[in-house]
């Protein structure tokens, strides 16, 4: 039993790891090809199967006048917008989530669960139609084509995720903890920051990571709500998609754009384990 389970476990994990890695390997290989080596049929190993070219990578830093897209500035724009919006969303979302987890709200038939659902329901609406009112809204407050405008929109996109996840995690932190803290003479805010929050680190990390990811990979709003001043990374990369689909440079850009988040993944993994520890000690 134990042996078979162990075998199946490693078999499945290996299988999944291969599945996860396969498209990336293909992307790495493709990023060193050019038009002719892409269109001659599938090839895999540079030098053996095809003559590697650096064109796919070079276009990422060339100016458009030279046939590239220059992703350096959009890269930093994206980092800034994503981090700022995630931070604000996490702060606001965590506070609301704590309220929804710990206190009872009632206004007519609206109860805690309904308010929680209200938050998450903001993500249901397909973004296409929202683009027009957001455009008019940002236009009215003069924030079109600006980093702040995008941050405002992203807060709406990200906060619901933070609230939804944090409510679950706060529910798991025993109420006795806050109560003990209050009896010990903390005010509710101190109880929250000093006692409850440290016990919810895995939740915070997970919510934070989701915010960062959903901010980082958004294309649509960044596309509609900016013109020339501000460009975010996905929008800039898609600008490579001309009549000829450049498999090579899109592959390179996919790898480049995932890189910073891999670092985030390592941090997340580390704190997940730590959170467990602190939760166990309490």
């Amino acid at each position: 039993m134990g042996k078979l389970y162990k075998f199946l476990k490693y078999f499945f994990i290996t299988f999944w790891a291969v599945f996860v890695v396969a498209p990336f390997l293909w992307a790495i290989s493709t990023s060193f090809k050019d038009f002719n080596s892409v269109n001659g049929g599938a090839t895999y190993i540079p030098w053996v199967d095809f003559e590697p070219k650096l064109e796919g990578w070079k276009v990422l830093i060339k100016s458009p006048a030279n046939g590239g897209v220059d992703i350096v500035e959009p890269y930093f724009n994206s980092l800034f917008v994503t981090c700022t919006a995630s931070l604000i969303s996490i702060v606001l979302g965590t506070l609301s989530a704590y309220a929804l987890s710990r206190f009872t709200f009632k206004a007519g038939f609206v109860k805690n669960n309904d308010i929680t659902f209200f938050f998450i329901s903001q993500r249901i609406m397909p973004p296409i139609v929202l683009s027009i009112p957001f455009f008019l809204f940002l236009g009215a407050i003069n924030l079109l084509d600006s980093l702040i405008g995008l941050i405002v929109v992203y807060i709406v996109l990200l906060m619901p995720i933070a609230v939804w996840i944090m409510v679950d995690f706060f529910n798991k932190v025993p109420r006795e903890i806050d109560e003990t803290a209050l009896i010990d003479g903390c005010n509710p805010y101190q109880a929250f920051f000093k006692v409850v929050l440290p016990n919810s680190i895995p939740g915070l990390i997970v919510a934070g990571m989701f915010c960062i990811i959903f901010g980082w990979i958004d294309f649509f709003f960044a596309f509609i709500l900016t013109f020339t001043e501000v460009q975010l990374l996905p929008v800039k990369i898609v600008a490579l998609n001309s009549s000829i689909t450049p498999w090579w440079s899109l592959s390179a850009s996919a790898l480049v754009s995932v890189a910073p988040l891999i670092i985030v993944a390592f941090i997340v993994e580390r704190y997940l384990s730590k959170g467990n520890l602190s939760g166990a000690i309490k």
Partner: protein
Amino acid sequence: MNFKHKYVFLFPGLFVLIGILIFPIIFVVRLSLSGWNSYNGLNFIGLENYVRLFTDDPRFWQSFLRLSFLSVTTVILQYVIGFALAHMVWKDIKFQRFFRVLFLIPMMTTPVIMTVIWRTFFHESLGPVNDILSNFGMSPKWLTDPVLAKFTVIIVEVWQWTPFMFLLLLAGLLSLPKEPFLAAAIDGASPVRKFLYVTFPLMAPISIGAIIIRLIEASKIMDTVYVLTSGGPGTATETSSFYIFIKGLREFQMGYAASMSFTYLIIMIISLTVIAKVLTKVLLKD
């Protein structure tokens, strides 16, 4: 506890959200009552869009059924696989950190860009999959067979979003209290029983949350369909959100698209509420 504090916690987030969204939402409702398109402005045509949607647009409802199939299938797969993976790397496994990080990565790729890679991956004459399979005399039509194309979309979605479930469930597992497991160990429960009677019930609340949020996200599936197949072959992979995209941004029938979005929103809110209730009943037996 002092009564006022709860509002101090709740209101900043709630009001920021309402403040930013109130105008857009009202505008969408207003838009859905107009014939706003490439040649008309924000006129008022009453419920005409809704009448058209409910009486004369089978394509929308077909795409909705297709969407239901796709999103329910992908979310179930993501949940099962995500839970299995999370459980497997939860404790004592070699290269634990490596696998944990690796399994997170697909979610971090931008769908608009990553799906282009997938399209080349499944390209039937230039891609690696069929190149390898052709050695065994197989050449599946990944993107051009009406049935298989749906599964290709599912494969890509499962690849991209299983990490979401994985992370949420792993975090859940890692923050489980130790005591129930100690008790189970003392009772000498088998691993299967331990999972069924201890782990799974403890994970139920977070599972419901994860499934609901994935259902919401999976239903917005857009980029994957757009890049992989553009809803084709025929209309075999056209989903509601993609159909709304075509009507809204391609044909610029914004008024009609708004009425579809609003209808979609209502249907989704109702069905998600029902699903959440059912899941709660099934998973949290008490």
